[in-house]
C-alpha cells in the first residue's frame, strides 16, 4: 500500500470515532504543523489528528501500529530541536485538546494535568494555594507540560529547583500497543525500575504521554535579584564560580554577553548596561531576612570578582523587568537578523572562558555573528547564531558552525544538549558524544517499548550506520573505541 492509499484508509477509519474537525488532511490544514520551534526543518505530515480522550489516543495508536504508520506526538510545538518535526509518511498526533487541569491536591502538593496544559497555567492554577510548578523554560507562557516531560525541559531556576525529571511524580502513558500504563506512584517512588526517569526526556520515542502529575512547591516568601556588569566575560565566569564556592545556591544565575545584552535592551528596555562585556543576573529566594543577608554577601563577591556596576531589584516589578530581558533574549536577538539558530550545549563552568573564546574564533571563521546567553549556574550555554535563511547556502554554514560548537562542548567535557533535546537537530553530534556501544544500548531500550520503530522514529538516537557515514565516530585520545567492532 502506498502512502496515499494508507492516508485514505486512515481517514476512513478515523472518521468512525473522530469528528471531521479533528482530522486535518489538506495541505493548507497541515501547513501550520510543518515544523516546531526549530523552523529550519520542515515537513508536511500525512495527516494531523487532534484527539480529546485517552480512548481516542489509544485507538489512533492501535490503528497506526496495525498499518505500520509512524506517529509523532506534538504539544504546543515550541520545541527547539525538531523533536515534533512531522514525518511525511506519518501521523502527527496533536495533544493540544488535552488542555485541562484535572486536579490540584493542596495537601499533597501535586497537580494532575493533561499534557497540552501550558507550563505557566499550572503555576497560575496553583497560586491560590501558595504553590507553584518550579521548572520555568523561557517559553513557559506557550510550551505545554507534555512537551516539557518529553524533552526534560529546564529553565532559569533549575540550579536550585531541578529539571522536569525532578518535578514529575507520575505519568499516564499510551504504549505503541495501545495500552495505558501508570508510571511512577502516588508517593515519591514506585516498585521496580525507575521508568519515570527513563520517560522524562525520551522525546516521544518510547510512549505517548496522556496525563502528568507534577510536584508543586510553596512559593518562596521573598525573592530579590542582583544584576552585575563586567568588562570581561572571563571575569563574569569566575564570579559565578565564586558565588557557588561560597556555599550559595541562587534560585537563578544567568549570564549574557554583549550582543545579547544590546539586543535584549533594545527589545524590552530593562535598563541593561549596553556597554558591558557581560552581565550576570543572580536571583536569591527564601525568607526575607535570609535573602537580604545573602544579597549582601553576593554583592561583596561580585565586587571582589571585578564587577563594574551592581543593581539590586527594589521590588518585584523591577525584578521581573530584569528577568524579562533575559527571558525575551531569543526573540530579541531574532530582531538583529532575519533568522537565528539556538544552540544548547552544557559545559563544566570553569571551561567557560575557553569555550567563549573558541566560539568567537569560529564565529569569525564562518563570518556569522553569535550572541550568547548562558544558564551560568548550571553550565548550560545557548549560543544564538544569526543568519539569513534566504541567502543561498547560509543555513548550511550555520549548521556547520552549530555542529562545531556542539563538538566543542563535548571536547570541553560537556554535552550537546542541556535542555532542548536532540530531536533531528543534534542527531549527528550524538555520534561524537556517545560510543557505538552506548548508541546500540539506546536502540535496545527503544526496542523494549517500540519494536517496529513507529514512535517518532529517526529522532534523538542516530543509527550506527549514520555515524559511520558521517565519519564522526566518537574518538577518545586519538583512538577509535572498540576497534574490534565492525564499522559498516
Amino acid at each position, binding site marked *: 500500500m502506498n502512502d496515499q492509499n494508507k492516508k485514505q484508509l486512515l481517514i476512513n477509519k478515523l472518521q468512525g470515532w473522530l469528528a471531521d474537525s479533528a482530522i486535518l488532511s489538506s495541505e493548507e490544514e497541515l501547513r501550520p504543523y510543518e515544523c516546531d520551534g526549530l523552523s529550519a526543518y520542515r515537513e508536511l505530515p500525512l495527516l494531523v489528528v487532534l484527539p480529546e480522550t485517552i480512548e481516542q489516543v489509544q485507538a489512533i495508536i492501535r490503528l497506526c501500529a496495525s498499518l505500520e504508520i509512524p506517529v509523532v506526538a506534538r504539544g504546543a510545538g515550541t520545541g527547539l530541536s525538531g523533536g515534533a518535526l512531522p514525518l511525511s509518511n506519518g501521523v502527527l498526533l496533536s495533544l493540544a485538546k488535552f488542555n485541562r487541569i484535572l486536579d490540584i*491536591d*493542596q*495537601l*499533597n*502538593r501535586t497537580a494532575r494535568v493533561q499534557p497540552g496544559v501550558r507550563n505557566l497555567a499550572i503555576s497560575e492554577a496553583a497560586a491560590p494555594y*501558595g504553590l507553584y510548578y518550579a521548572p520555568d523554560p523561557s517559553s513557559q507562557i506557550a510550551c505545554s507540560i507534555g512537551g516539557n516531560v518529553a524533552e*526534560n525541559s529546564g529553565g532559569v531556576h*533549575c*540550579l536550585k529547583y*531541578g529539571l522536569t*525529571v525532578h518535578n514529575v511524580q507520575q505519568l499516564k502513558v499510551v504504549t505503541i500497543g495501545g495500552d495505558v500504563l501508570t508510571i511512577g506512584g*502516588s*508517593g*515519591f517512588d*514506585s*516498585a*521496580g*525500575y*525507575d*521508568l519515570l*526517569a*527513563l520517560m522524562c*526526556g*525520551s522525546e516521544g520515542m*518510547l510512549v505517548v504521554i496522556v496525563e502528568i502529575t507534577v510536584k508543586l512547591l*510553596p512559593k*518562596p516568601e521573598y525573592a530579590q535579584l542582583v544584576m552585575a556588569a563586567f568588562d570581561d566575560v572571563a571575569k563574569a565566569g569566575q564570579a559565578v564560580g565564586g558565588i*557557588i*564556592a561560597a556555599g*550559595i*545556591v541562587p534560585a537563578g544565575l544567568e549570564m549574557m554577553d554583549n550582543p545579547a545584552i544590546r539586543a535584549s535592551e533594545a527589545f524590552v528596555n530593562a535598563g541593561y548596561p549596553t556597554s558591558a562585556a557581560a552581565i550576570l543576573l543572580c536571583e536569591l529566594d*527564601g*525568607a526575607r*531576612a*535570609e535573602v*537580604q*543577608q*545573602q544579597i549582601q554577601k553576593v554583592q561583596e563577591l561580585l565586587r571582589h570578582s571585578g564587577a563594574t556596576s551592581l543593581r539590586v531589584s527594589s521590588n518585584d516589578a523591577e525584578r521581573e523587568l530584569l528577568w524579562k530581558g533575559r527571558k525575551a533574549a531569543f526573540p530579541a536577538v531574532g530582531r538583529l537578523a532575519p533568522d537565528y539558530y539556538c544552540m544548547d550545549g*552544557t559545559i*563544566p*563552568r*570553569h571551561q567557560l572562558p575557553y569555550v567563549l573564546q573558541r566560539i568567537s574564533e569560529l564565529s569569525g571563521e564562518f563570518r556569522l555573528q553569535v550572541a550568547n546567553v548562558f544558564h551560568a549556574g*548550571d*553550565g*548550560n550555554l545557548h549560543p544564538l547564531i544569526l543568519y539569513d535563511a534566504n541567502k543561498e547556502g547560509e543555513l548550511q554554514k550555520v549548521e556547520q558552525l552549530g555542529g562545531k560548537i556542539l563538538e566543542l562542548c563535548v571536547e570541553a*567535557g560537556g*554535552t550537546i544538549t*542541556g535542555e*532542548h533535546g*536532540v530531536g533531528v537537530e543534534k542527531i549527528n553530534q550524538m555520534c561524537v*558524544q*556517545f*560510543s557505538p*556501544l*552506548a548508541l546500540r*544500548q*539506546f536502540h535496545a*531500550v527503544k526496542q523494549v*517499548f517500540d519494536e517496529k520503530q513507529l514512535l517518532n522514529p529517526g529522532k534523538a*538516537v542516530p543509527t550506527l550506520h549514520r555515524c559511520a557515514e558521517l565519519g564522526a565516530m566518537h574518538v577518545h585520545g586519538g583512538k577509535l573505541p572498540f576497534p574490534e567492532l565492525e564499522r559498516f
Partner: protein
Amino acid sequence: MSDLTEQLQAQVQHALQARTPLVIQGGGSKSFYGNACEGSVLSVREHRGIVEYEPEELVITARAGTSLMEIETTLARHGQMLLFEPPHFGETATLGGAIACGFSGPRRPFAGSARDFVLGCKILTGKGEVIEFGGRVIKNVAGYDVPRLMAGALGTLGVILEVSLKVLPSPEAEVTLAMPAHINEAIDIMNARAGQPLPLSAAVYDGEAVVMRLSGAVQGVSAARKKIAGDELKQGPAFWQQIKEQRHFFFDDDIPLWRLSLAPATLHLGLPGSWLFDWGGALRWLKTDATPHDVRDAVAAEGGHATLFKYKEYWEQREPYCVFHPLPPALMAIHQKLKTAFDPEKILNRHRLYEDKF
C-alpha cells in the same frame, strides 16, 4: 585507588560464557535488601577512588567501591554534601551500593532522591560491555536517561562501575524542633508545614512527636524557627542520624519491617502494628505481623507500594520472592524486556528484584 574495570569485565564475560549467575557485592552493608539471590560473588569493593571532584562544578565522580564515608568526608572538607543523605547501614557502605539500592535519607522530600542527583555512570552490562551514559555536567538531556534508571535497579541491569553525582553546599545552620502529637494529627501537621515557604529539610513522626528540621542560611532558619511550634531538640543531628541509619529504638526488634511509599497526606492506614513516618508522611515504616497480601492491598488502594524491607525470613519461607510489590502484567513485561536488553542471560543479581524472570 585502583581501577579494576578490566578484571571485572573479564569476570562478567566468563560468567556470561558459562551462564553462571553473579552476585554483585560492594561493602555488603545492604546485602539484607531484596530477594535472596545466588551465584558467585563479583566484588567491586576494590574498584575504588574518587576520579574527579571540582567543588565549584558541584559534581563528584567516583568508582563504585569508594566508601560512602570517604566521599562524604571529602565533600565536607569543601562545605558540600550529598543532599539525598544516603543511609549507610554499616561502615563498609560503598557509593555503588548506595546508588544501586537507591535509598535516600530524611532530606529526600525537600531536596530530592538518590536518582535525582545521578548525572552519569559507567556500567558493565550483562553482555560484558563497559558503557558510559550521561555526563559530568548538571544539565544533560542527550540520550535516554540510563544513569537514573540504574538507581534502585539493584544491579540487575548492569554492574555500576563509576557514578557522577551532583553535590551541593551544606546548609549553614540547622535546627530540630519536636512537638508531641497524636498519630492521627501527625500527617496533617507535617503536610500543612510542607505547603508553606519554610526551609524544611526533614519531617518525621516517631510515634510520640512530630520532629522537623529546618536548614539554610542563619537568618532564614531563625526566622522560620519563630513560625513553628515545638521545642528545640538539642540532640538534633544525633536524632536524624538514628532515623537515617535505622538506629532509632523503633527499629530495635525483629518484627517484619515494611517500607510503605504513599502520597504524603494519605490518611493513616488501618493496618495493625507500630508506625514511624518519615519523608513528611510519604515514607511509612510499619512493624507488623500482617500478611504481605493485607499490607499490599491497603497500600495499593492508596496508589502506593510496599516493600518487605527487613526481618523478612518468615514470609520468604512461605512466599518466595515477596520482597517487592508485584507489578501489573503490562509493566512486568516491560521490566523483563529491559532486563533482557541489558542482561540477556540474566547473570546479574538473578532474582534479587523479581522472581525467576530476573
